[in-house]
């Protein structure tokens, strides 16, 4: 293998291995063989997300992701989609706070096509990018925003809680979808500038996983990506670090036409990539994941005050992670009743920590989630890129589950005590209003 170091399977990796390489233009390449099914996944992470956006241009990273499917020097119009699908592949791209990813899963004999396509747009997108596709995709993205956020009950809760959790001016204060006003304001020149700044081989990691010949694959990667010039226009992202604790509860009450009252909250948690973050994952699993969790047992089974109750973890590497509480109330139950029960359960957990049975269950659940993620070539390719981009070492993906299994009950209790407390959360309360109320408010708003 040229340049690669050959990895042997590490404990807890489930026998998976990966090799790492770097082209002279700085593109990092991760290869992982698996011949069980004749498929190959190509995944490309660009180290750019909504945290790199500037004031007045929120949503640009995501809008730009759409433009990446609008053609490049040798690929016309929707050719990227057409060629991959016509080859029996599937594909997409997504944008988050910290990265933008593009991926194709191909029948193994069509792998070269996916590499050629990704290289073509990495190297030559701007030769095809025009006003027409910019205007069209601006409208598509605005409709995406309406469909996923604005036209569904509680649809903007994520955006509201994120804005509460990270202060004004913080790189994570806004979410990747961006605001309508900023989407309207984005120009073709903004998109060009974005590409020139961030879409460089030295700002990306490419992984190829599946039924591949690593030497042949690497030769193709060299052939197609090797001549793309590197460039260094990128500034480091703004610092996302914040104090461990918020120090006081932040709160917003939303009066909207929603079907039921809701209590949502975001707790400030340790950054991804730390033991404390894995411990927090276990704490949230014990407290609020699945039907044997403490909050489900308390609110849904025993008190019967909630229709759903759960915790999720949004892992972030460049800013504090968020522990996501979501409770929808049952019938006419009021939010303070729910809140008191949640606080009581969290305080008790912080004092006592998880039982051995709870630790066993939470670790088994997280182990299954990892098996699920690593069970497909596409999932594995994405995780290899994630650990390479965010933590500098793709091999960490293959041992992630072992790290979760190594966490002790004491560590789980400690992180809960330090972080899962009322003075370390942003709270969003939904109070339903009828359409008539909503109209009144709208007209008052208009009169101002």
């Amino acid at each position: 293998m040229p340049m690669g170091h050959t990895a042997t399977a590490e404990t807890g990796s489930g026998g998976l291995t990966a090799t790492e390489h770097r082209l002279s233009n700085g593109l990092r390449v991760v290869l992982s063989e698996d011949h069980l099914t004749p498929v190959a996944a190509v995944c490309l992470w660009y180290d750019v997300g909504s945290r790199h956006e500037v004031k007045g241009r929120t949503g640009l990273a995501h809008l730009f992701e759409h433009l990446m499917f609008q053609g490049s020097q040798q690929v016309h119009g929707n050719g990227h989609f057409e060629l991959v699908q016509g080859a029996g592949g599937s594909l997409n791209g997504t944008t988050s706070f910290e990265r933008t990813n593009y991926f194709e899963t191909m029948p193994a004999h069509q792998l070269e096509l996916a590499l050629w396509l990704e290289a073509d747009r990495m190297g030559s997108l701007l030769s095809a990018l025009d006003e027409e596709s910019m205007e069209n995709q601006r409208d598509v993205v605005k409709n995406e925003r309406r469909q996923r956020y604005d036209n569904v009950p509680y649809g903007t809760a994520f955006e509201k809680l994120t804005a509460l959790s990270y202060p004004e001016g913080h790189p994570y204060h806004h979410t990747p979808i961006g605001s309508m006003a900023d989407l309207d304001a984005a120009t073709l020149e903004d998109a060009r500038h974005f590409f020139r700044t961030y879409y460089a081989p030295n700002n990306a990691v490419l992984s190829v996983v599946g039924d591949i010949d690593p030497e042949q694959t690497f030769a193709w990667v060299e052939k197609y990506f090797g001549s793309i010039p590197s460039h260094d226009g990128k500034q480091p992202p703004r610092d996302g670090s914040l104090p461990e604790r918020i120090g006081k509860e932040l709160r917003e009450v939303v009066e909207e036409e929603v079907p039921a009252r809701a209590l949502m909250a975001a707790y400030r948690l340790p950054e991804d990539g730390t033991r404390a973050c894995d411990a927090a994952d276990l704490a949230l699993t014990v407290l609020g994941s699945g039907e044997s969790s403490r909050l489900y047992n308390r609110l849904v089974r025993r008190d019967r005050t909630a229709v759903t109750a759960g915790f999720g973890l949004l892992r972030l590497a460049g800013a504090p992670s968020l522990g996501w509480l979501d409770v929808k109330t049952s019938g006419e139950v009021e939010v303070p009743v729910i809140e008191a029960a949640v606080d009581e359960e969290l305080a008790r957990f912080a004092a006592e920590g998880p039982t051995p049975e709870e630790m066993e269950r939470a670790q088994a659940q997280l182990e299954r989630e990892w098996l699920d993620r690593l069970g497909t070539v596409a999932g594995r390719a994405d995780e290899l890129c994630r650990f390479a981009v965010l933590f500098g070492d793709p091999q960490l993906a293959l041992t992630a589950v072992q790290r979760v299994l190594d966490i002790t009950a004491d560590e789980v209790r400690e992180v809960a005590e330090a972080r899962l407390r009322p003075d370390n959360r942003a709270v969003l309360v939904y109070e339903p209003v009828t359409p008539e109320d909503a109209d009144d408010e709208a007209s008052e708003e208009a009169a101002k």
Partner: protein
Amino acid sequence: MTEAATMEFHPQPQAGTAKPWAFPAPERGALPNGLTVLRCDRPGQQLVAVEVHLDAPLDAEPQGLDGVATIMARAFNEGTDKHSAEEFAAELDRCGATLDAHADHAGVRVSLEVPVSRLPKALGLLADALRAPAFADSEVERLVRNRLDEIPHESANPARRAAKELSRQLFPASSRMSRPRQGTEETVKAIDSAAVRAFYEKHIRPAAATAVVVGDLSGTDLDAVLADTLGAWTGGAAEPRPVPAVTADDRGRVVIVDRPGAVQTQLLIGRVGPDRHDRVWAAQVLGTYCLGGTLTSRLDRVLREEKGYTYGVRAFSQVLRSSADGTGAAMLAISGSVDTPNTGPALEDLWKVLRTLAAEGLTDPERDVAVQNLVGVAPLKFETAVAVAGTLADQVEQNLPDDFQARLYRQLAETGTVEATAAVVNAFPDDRLVTVLVGDAAQIEEPVKALGIGEVSVVTG
């Protein structure tokens, strides 16, 4: 900076040699208690998927108790003769397992996923749930209340609301298909543990069930595990269950579900067509893909990639109920959402796409790309155990042979442009579609009336 930075361009590469892949053939057998078992070894798939089909269709629910099959399905997770509801949930989580169940027109489906190392334990829990569910009064009461709490959430969701309205429009009121699968507020309120147990006792038995087990089974003595778990379930013989014919009223018309102030209109445009037993199925799959299977299909080419009216519109078919004698049916539909001001123009374009398709047909290149995609993606689509198990269980539920999917791929490859055109034009005739729009009637009613795609009525709620 300039755009002078260039790369070395190479011609588009040619494909290598395709490796053979076939949809996995399951091994079919039966346990002494009458339970049918399909098994399929998938090396490397450490997460095992078990799908159980129970022949307890929604039309078996007693009059006035719509939703009892749903509550029963959910109650499988709420305790057995060995464990209370809380203990049962804890034991499942201890296996790292998920267990879900839902009721649909074709029957009840119970789905288990678990790492293979804990398969015996989890299969034991699944078997307990089917063999000796507790159906405790208090747990059923809680599930009923929970279900009642869910209904307003579903009504508030534009896509769910549209689906409910389309069923109500298409099917006669006497048909179970016209009413919500999980019941209405009125019928759910009437459900108690006695009703759940009665439904269970009448319909749930191993002889009227099939279990599909898929995953890396190389280190597991599945026969022994099955004998200890699902093999311990007992019950009487299965009775033949006639499937009522499906009739639907697809006179072209438009129903607006009024949502004052909505920024988008949810579209659901549908009718009823043949199921997988019909010879036209492969051609219909192919034609429907060309119409609206993906971003580069005809609908999105115009509505999304040219006009920007939508994030995406899809055409699809979804089997409702099937039987070997061919009396089954599938829902054929087009769905998506468009911004409120462009609702009229978007529908106008949508109809133009349908009419152009009927007038000019599909092109050969369009057909070729569709076949290459539908057939080519199979190895990707069926990489996981859960995907294989789901498809095998669907075949069982629809009374199809175990090699149906494998044969479908061969049929797709043999289907020509003319057949695909005929099938999709028959599936989506422009004057026989019921259009449900969940949106702001004050803004969309007039523009939609002007299109002449059928009588327009407005409902609320």
